[in-house]
């Protein structure tokens, strides 16, 4: 992969790679397990100018969650969360399908549906940054109302359309690679460029780690917050358009349903802390790939797909337990690691501004 995609800057490259070893290891392990269960897993064939095979399938089906995870990563890096991405997918899909059915051209359709996503993100961002509503609550509003808005657009119908152009976005291919995978890779690259080639990434991390200090250093915290929610809305809209294009119709009741949870899971697996700070876009996409590979593996192994949820829950709990400050305290530190300032405050210590006369 190209360099600027993962979180750590070049100076940290070695330790960064080391730190992301668990994610790559997990992905490799899941893929290997799939291969053991299903020896043809890695076989890829070319048919009608498009690649086919289980591995390609994993990437293709994982694309929507990966797209959501890209936006979600940055929101979570600012110590926020966006519960509305599934609903935003439904809205963008509804706009795309309805307009296509009404005879609009592809450019106008894409502009309108992505614009809808941006608008949704802007709404979330304004609630969080200016009205200072907790992110989980602020985005809950759109999560609840968003599907209603989407149904309003499609008037409650499952809108189907015939448009080779739009359909190609979902099921076409580019240089033999399925379109969703290409779009995901492109959006990942653009996002990485946007945050790492500008100072936005630094600002996002700074705001997520310490909003007060960042504001004191002159970081325009409201703008940073609005920006990440807007981008998250855009990513969700892209995912929504892909899903709609794939099934050649908008099913607003089911499009993106519960995908916000998969996206959050992907980000958590990717190692971005729910407490904000350092983030890795590529690793979140790897997280999405792990989730999808597990799905595929469970399917291939003949288990009921229903086991998916339990496996997901187990993975989520395991990752979180590993990050839990309590467990960090219980486990012995790796040799040579420097003690970080104690992560847990003593249980009883009245919060006071001027007190701690003695700092160890």
């Amino acid at each position: 992969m190209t360099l600027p995609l993962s979180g750590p800057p070049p100076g940290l490259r070695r330790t960064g790679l080391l730190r992301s070893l668990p994610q790559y290891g997990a992905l490799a392990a899941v893929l290997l397990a799939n291969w053991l269960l299903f020896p043809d897993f890695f076989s890829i064939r070319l048919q009608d100018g498009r690649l086919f095979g289980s591995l390609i399938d994993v990437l293709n089906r994982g694309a929507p969650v990966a797209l959501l995870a890209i936006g979600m990563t940055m929101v979570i890096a600012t110590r926020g969360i966006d519960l509305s991405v599934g609903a935003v997918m439904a809205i963008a899909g509804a706009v795309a399908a309805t307009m296509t059915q009404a005879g609009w051209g592809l450019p106008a359709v894409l502009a309108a549906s992505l614009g809808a996503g941006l608008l949704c993100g802007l709404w979330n961002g304004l609630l969080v940054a200016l009205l200072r509503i907790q992110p989980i609550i602020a985005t809950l509003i759109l999560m609840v109302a968003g599907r209603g808005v989407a149904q309003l657009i499609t008037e409650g119908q499952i809108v189907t359309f015939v448009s080779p152009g739009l359909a190609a976005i979902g099921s076409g291919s580019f240089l033999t690679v399925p379109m969703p995978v290409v779009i995901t890779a492109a959006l990942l690259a653009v996002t990485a460029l946007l945050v790492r080639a500008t100072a936005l990434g630094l600002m996002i991390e700074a705001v997520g780690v310490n909003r007060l200090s960042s504001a004191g250093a002159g970081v325009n915290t409201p703008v940073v917050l609005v920006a990440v929610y807007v981008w998250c809305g855009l990513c969700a809209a892209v995912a929504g358009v892909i899903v709609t294009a794939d099934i050649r119709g908008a099913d607003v009741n089911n499009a993106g349903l519960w995908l916000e949870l998969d996206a959050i899971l992907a980000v958590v697996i990717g190692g971005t802390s729910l407490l904000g700070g350092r983030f890795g876009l590529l690793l979140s996409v790897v997280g999405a790939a792990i989730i999808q590979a597990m799905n595929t593996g469970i399917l291939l192994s003949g288990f009921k797909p229903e086991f998916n949820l339990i496996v997901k829950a187990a993975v989520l709990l395991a990752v979180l337990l590993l990050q839990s400050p309590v467990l960090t305290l219980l486990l012995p530190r790796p040799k040579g690691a420097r003690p970080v300032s104690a992560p847990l405050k003593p249980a009883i210590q009245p919060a006071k501004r001027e007190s701690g006369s003695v700092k160890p």
Partner: protein
Amino acid sequence: MTPHIPEPSAPLLAIRGLSKAFLGVQALDGVDFTLRHGEIHALLGENGAGKSTLIKTLTGVYRRDAGTVALEGREIAPRGVEEAQRLHIGTVYQEVNLLPNLSVAENLFLGRQPMRFGLVDRGAMRRRARAVLSGFGLSVEVTAPLGRFSVATQQIVAIARAVDMSAKVLILDEPTASLDAQEVAVLFGVLRALKGRGIGIVFVTHFLDQVYAVCDRITVLRNGRLVGERRTDELPRLDLVAMMLGRELEAAAHRIAADPAAHDDADTDARPPLVRFRGFGRARSVEPFDLDIHPGEVVGLAGLLGSGRTETVRLVFGMDRADQGKATVDGRPVRLRGPREAIRLGFGFCPEDRKKEGIVGELSVRENIILALQARQGWLKPIPRRRQEEIADRFIRLLDIRTPDAERPIQLLSGGNQQKALLARWLATEPRLLILDEPTRGIDVGAHAEIIRLIERLCADGMALLVVSSELEEIVAYSRRVVVLRDRRHIAELRGGEVTVDRIVSAIASEPASSGSEGALA
């Protein structure tokens, strides 16, 4: 304030030889403290004196290393605030540790509600709450949420809860820090009444006027050691401040500042000031003040803890918004609506609470150093990576920041090196006015001296500096002018030859212009 204090055979509370160390730092070193029945006893000392440690060790939040605590002659060793409360020692903190969302009555009786038929008897609870509070001269709607009342009322409710849970010793940790004059008067009425009931009160505060208004005795700590215990009416203010600051007044009485040239104000005052504040202030924070700062001068802000120094610099940098007064920069009026405006005007600010408001802990030293510069340039104009490294390396060398490399997370550095990195953050923006709040607090000796040399060098280069420090010698050494604060008010401005430790100490200790009662806060 009657000098007549009855003394039963055993004192109410006797602390002997109390010691406590944290990771080798001796926070309390063999401290004695005696509290008698029916007295209000001030526990005073500057930052790091050991007041908080004493209280936390007494109430069992910390375990003591050595020493004894006896309550009415019986040895006690509580293991937590709750147990201390059961042993009749109640504590009330500055930030009221009650629950603003619960009603007054529920706050008073949480965990010990009157029960009837297995359910909480709300009627009885209300009646008992009214009865308890009327004993404190408080008549409030006890079913209303506590948060709707003033901080003073909340303090009194907290005191009432502690006393009603059979406290014989009441510890008040800076209870007046966020009260206005009238509220303080009400609170003091309550304290005097409690005193009349034989309760012993330990009163921690930074307001000397309040000490003289309500306390019978004073115990002063400094650097974890007992300086002395005196009766209030036998201890003049000047002596008290000297005890707190640890100055030998006689020896230094006529000392002139070491370097008179540093305080020569002939040429700079003639030039127009860089910044000028007139009637600048904020309610409940700091009273309106006038302040000029010229290029190439250091203005020091001196005063005891809680006197309004930090509040002043936060207003100047726009961290808190002034609600009155005018500010001009280069003679042009400006509105300081936030740090971003201040930074655009060429200000920089190193806050007192480095960890909470200064550093961005997880980020690297390099990122912390370039953060303000980058923020000012905007996110669209990233500082190229190479340039970032150059800037970071330059300041790491210049300020001798001890770190293996610029990529280490700043939270892993020592306090002194974090402070230097924060200084570097602002120096990288080439500020015209640098504001430093306690720049040498919690820093090892070597770094301390370096930071002071740096301040002097920056000043010589023509930068304007506004520095808050509790270290008076330090402030005298580098300041051309010193503004002295007390009780959230700028009370004196010393310049030239006046800038000496003694003058500052006497200014702090001077009787307030008003009647000298507890009203001095207004």
